[in-house]
């Protein structure tokens, strides 16, 4: 079933960029260029996700969000903002936002976050195993095998791989991986993720499948399904 997204963004360039991106991924995208229009649309339609700009004409993004939440609307909300600061992030989440991204951003990352929020509304039986190609992860026993060979992983490596396996064939940014593994939200400006990924990849290489984790320059990492 096609998912519906409402995009409220006053910057025409960003609006087109995001709307085109989601349309290409088979989402149905409605858009509004000011807060008032956004609120009206959000109240009268059933969306799977709202993407809100933080600064909007007529009605500020956070105010819109508060108004929506007060009226009992529980649609997942992702806030976009040019202000890359923790306090803004906190404010956004307190107003009822479910996730937060700062501009400028890569569409790939927005897509991953959006999918996560959209799927949250769909009740799925909790998976106990994840399988991507020859890679198999048992969540309860934390056993990971590649072509029946067991991989011995450190806890952080396990968490990283789990995140990658949940989004196979998708480019995952370092920031996303960082947030998946650590409870600290900041731009690490460090190669800590790269170091972990390198270790993980080395373990794959020992089994002859180093190519499973692909580095995407300027974007992040991708777990290939191909195998």
């Amino acid at each position, binding site marked *: 079933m096609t998912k519906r997204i409402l995009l409220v963004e006053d910057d025409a360039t960003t609006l087109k960029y995001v709307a085109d991106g989601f349309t290409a991924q088979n989402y149905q995208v409605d858009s509004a260029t000011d807060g008032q229009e956004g609120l009206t649309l959000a109240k009268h339609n059933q969306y799977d996700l709202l993407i809100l700009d933080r600064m909007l004409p007529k009605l500020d993004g956070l105010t819109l969000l508060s108004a929506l939440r007060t009226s009992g609307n529980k649609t997942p909300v992702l806030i976009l903002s040019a202000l*890359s600061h*923790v306090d803004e992030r906190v404010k956004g989440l307190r107003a009822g936002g479910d996730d937060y991204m700062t501009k400028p951003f890569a569409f790939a990352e927005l897509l991953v976050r959006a999918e996560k929020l959209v799927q949250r509304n769909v009740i799925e039986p909790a998976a106990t195993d994840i399988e991507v190609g020859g890679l198999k992860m048992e969540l309860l026993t934390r056993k990971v095998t590649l072509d029946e060979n067991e991989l011995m992983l450190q806890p952080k490596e396990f968490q990283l791989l789990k995140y990658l396996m949940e989004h196979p064939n998708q480019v995952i940014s370092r920031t996303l991986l960082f947030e998946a593994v650590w409870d*600290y939200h900041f*731009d690490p*400006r460090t*190669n*800590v993720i790269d170091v972990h990924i390198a270790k993980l990849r080395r373990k794959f290489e020992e089994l002859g499948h180093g190519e499973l984790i692909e580095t995407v*320059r300027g*974007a992040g990492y991708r777990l290939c399904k191909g195998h």
Partner: protein
Amino acid sequence: MTILIVMLVLSLYRQLVIEQQNQVDKHLAAEMQRYQQLALTVNRRSFAAQIRAADPKTALIAWRNSVDMVGALTFLPENMPQLPETKDFPIFTGGPDKLHILTGGLVITRYGPVLIATRTDHLATLIEKFINAAFWAVAFTLGLTLALGYIFSKAILRRLVEYNRLSEQIEAGHYETRLPVSDSQDEFDMLARQFNLVLDTLEQNLRAVRGVTDNIAHDLRTPLSHLRIGIEQLADKPTNELADASAELLEELDHCLGTFDAMLSLTRIEEGQQTLDLQPVSLQQICQDLFEMAEVIAESRDQVLDISLENDVQINGDKYLLFQALFNLVDNAIKYSPVGASICIKQRGKHIQISDNGPGIIDEDKERVFDRLVRLDPSRHYKGTGLGLSMVKAILSRHKATISLHDNNPGLLVNIHFK
């Protein structure tokens, strides 16, 4: 002052003029009594004789009997009240000052009404003179006050005008201009001194901003010109190389954006615009997390990362910001120390120490490294924005913590102390 003078004159007026009037009233009352007595004791003829003989200098007496007027006047002025009520009335005489002003009233005797009056020209003149004098006195003081005030305010105004002129000069861009401070140490000098202090601070900040702007321009010029070249070449790239080439450009661009972001958030933290998300933070926990995150990076450079914790302390702080600051320090230690070095995170109560045995920082640079966009590595070999330590310092000072750099012989020792 003028009001004071007016009050003084008024009280003088009361004393002088009212006293005079009282005397007139008393005089008239005495005369009235005299003629009342006279009317009772003498016969009509003697009464008339007495009235005719009255000395006009003491009092002017006129009696109207049933046939004619006896005394100083040929008629009785109309509507005269009975004494002690009095009324002023004019009379004409043949003398050089023809018009006389008199004050008087009637006494009713058994022979008829008798007018008793006394000349009050002198009183009227007195009042007139007095008012004249008072007017000039008040006018004079008023004039004097105004003149003095004008001269005085002119002196003040001259300074204000001077201040104004200098402010305009400053506004026009002469930021080195200062207001003159005289030796008199008055309020104006205090104002000027304060104003000069503000100017000093502003000028300092301005210079700092200029320095930073130059640095930004310098720092971003290189990646931006790389981008320019890259984009120019993109058009000629074969299709299979396009993805890689644009990814490379993206990385470069992200680096620029990262610098801007860091700059903005640094300012927000320094200026206190960013509210901290305060919560109890365990210094031990934060060091433990630090160790866990950094260990793998140190490992990748064959370095040893140690941790030593004692006496946990909870402080009220922004966990994410603090972690970011501390991580930056550990990350620097790892980045700038050679392969095989050892790095240590030590926590003792409110004291955190991060030490390495890398190249260290020479004394002259130990303060400078906290300035914005200062990078000790002139070749810019290491990736970075040059804002890391400024951010560390800003975050720590928002948490009222102090940071100082020391020699570890060899290496660098960073001391952080929370209050």
